[in-house]
Each structure stands twice: as C-alpha cells, then as structure tokens.
C-alpha cells in the first residue's frame, strides 16, 4: 500500500531521508508543470523547482498538519514563483548559445513541444495552435494565470484553490471565468479552425 503524505512526513521527522525522496518523486512532475507554466522558461523552472524542494526540506519539520500537505506545498510553490517573477528583470529575452535548450525561447518566440519526426505542414499548423495557446496563457495577468494553471494542471476544487491562494471561493470562480474569457477571445479563430 502506498504511504500517505502524512506518514511520509512523520517518517522524515524521525530521520528517514528516503521518505523525503519519495515525497519529491511524488510531487516533482506536478510542481514542475506549475512552475514551468508560471515562469514560461525551462531553466528558471529547473532552478525554482529545486529551490522549492530545498525550502520544503528545511521547513518540513515545522509542518504541523493543520492543513493538507499538498495545499501547503502548492502555496509554497505559488509564493516562490511570484517572488521569483518580481525579482526577474523584465527585459527582452534572448536566444543565446550559453542558455541551454529551452531556457528562454518561449518569451522570444513562442514554442511548443516537438512532437515527432515529421515536418509536414499539418503538424506545423498544430504547433502553431500550441504556440498561440502558450502565448495566450503567458499574456494573462499573474492572478488569473496562477488560478488557471493550478486548476488545469491539478484539477483542484475551488475550495482547495481558495485555501492555496488565500482568497474566497467566489474570487476563484470569477478569476477562472475571466481567465477563460480572455483565452477564448485570443484563441477563438484558431480553436474553430482546428
């Protein structure tokens, strides 16, 4: 039977390092997806994800279990991303050799994942749609972006979202509505063609 988050944390507090590894493996993909979507930049995502888990390691002893673990972890994630965004200078992004693949391209030239060997025009069209979606998400304001990303990646309920983002459920509902409305506005011509 899989260990619950709580039992892993208990074991970690008793000095079992392996349980921390299990926690990282359990959440790494989800946290990474959130951070990548928030930052729009692979290397920033790598650095910030590592930072989040280091923070987690150091503060896990203080976790009292009043709220659910994942609510706590997502709040840590969102706060770390927002701090990083505030700290990051808003300047023209570059594609540069010294930046590993995928670091900053998204802001300079919208991109999507490579999806196969073919180079046919159809695939290019699909890629274009992906590019449009990514850039539309990127254009959302931070408060709309975070709630939309958390909802779409994690399928969290409005109540859970409200806890993580520390606002009311009504605010979550209206933000999601606004986020989707903006996306729809930008993507309508592409969605209907696809």
């Amino acid at each position, binding site marked *: 039977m899989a260990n619950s988050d709580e039992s892993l944390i208990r074991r970690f507090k008793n000095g079992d390092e392996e349980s921390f590894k299990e926690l990282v493996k359990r959440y790494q*993909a989800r946290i990474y997806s959130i951070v*990548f979507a928030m930052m729009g930049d692979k290397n920033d995502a790598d650095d910030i994800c590592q*930072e989040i888990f*280091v923070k987690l390691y150091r503060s896990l002893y203080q976790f009292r279990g009043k709220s659910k673990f994942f609510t706590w972890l997502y709040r840590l994630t969102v706060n770390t991303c927002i701090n990083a965004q505030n700290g990051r200078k808003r300047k023209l992004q570059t594609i540069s050799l*010294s930046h590993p693949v995928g670091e900053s391209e998204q802001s*300079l030239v919208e991109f999507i994942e490579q999806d196969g060997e073919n180079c046919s025009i159809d695939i290019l069209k699909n890629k274009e749609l992906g590019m449009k979606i990514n850039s539309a998400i990127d254009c959302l304001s931070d408060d709309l972006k975070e709630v939309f990303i958390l909802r779409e990646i994690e399928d969290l309920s409005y109540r859970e979202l409200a806890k993580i983002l520390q606002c009311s459920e009504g605010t979550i509902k209206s933000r999601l509505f606004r986020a989707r409305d903006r996306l729809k506005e930008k993507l309508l011509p592409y969605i209907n063609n*696809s």
Partner: protein
Amino acid sequence: MKCRWSKENLSAYIDGELNIITGWIIKRHAKFCPECQKELNELQKISKLSKLLLIKEPEFDFYEQVREKLQQVKIAQQEKPEIAAERKSIERMWTFLPQSGKAALLVGVAALLFFLVIYPQIFPAPSLSIEQFEEEYLRSRETLPWVESPALSATLMSAERG
C-alpha cells in the same frame, strides 16, 4: 438576460463546481441555446488543449539535482563560522602589525593599482562573458551560404552585451 447569466457560469460548470440545481439549469439552457452550447464547446476545447500543453516532466535526474543543491546549502551553512573566524584572525593580524608594515602594505596596494591603470595589458581582464564568443561564432557561421538564417541574426542582435 438568461444567456448572460449562463455564460458567466459556464466556466464553473465545466469545472463541476455548481450545485445540482444550477448545474441542471445551465445544462438545459445550453441544450436549447446554440450560442451557449458553442461557447461551452469552446471552453471545453481550450481547457483540454491547455491541459495537454501545460503538463511537463522534469529531467529524469531531478531528485539527484535537488539532493546536490541540499548538500551545497548544508556545506555553505557549515562554512560560515570558519569564514567568520578567518576574518577575525586577519583583523587581529592588522592590529598587531607595526606601523612600518602597515605603510609597506598600503604602498604595495597603491603601486598595484597604479600599474593596473598604466599597463592594463599586464593584468588580463579578470573575466569575459561567453556572449562575445558566441557573437563571433555566429558571425563565422552566418557567412556560409546555407546556415539557418535568418534565425541567427536574431540571436546576434538580441544577445545581451555588457
């Protein structure tokens, strides 16, 4: 009027966050209102596509990277008291140094600075940014007829220079 109310609730409807009655009203309304039905389809499509695009996998050795970073943090914390001790011992040395020793040291530093200004080439620049090498590389590359221009020119121009 009803359409507007319905549209405002479609987002919550696709998230399954409406109570049973409101959900049922929306469902029924969308069934008979082609405009709301269309909007519902569009929202679902966007949600589905975004989900596909947003989910990413970290690198396979992610945990190892985290562990390495944890080690670095631990080492940095351990080093701190040593650095403090070192600084104290240097301060102590300076206080115990005779006046002539202090003067000699200051003259030495001044001479070094003087030479640095007069003959900067004696002291090679302490550090260079990799970007200037990249620009040179790209210039050589782009002189070939079949390089992937014009993308490279973009890099050339946008590369940050100090």
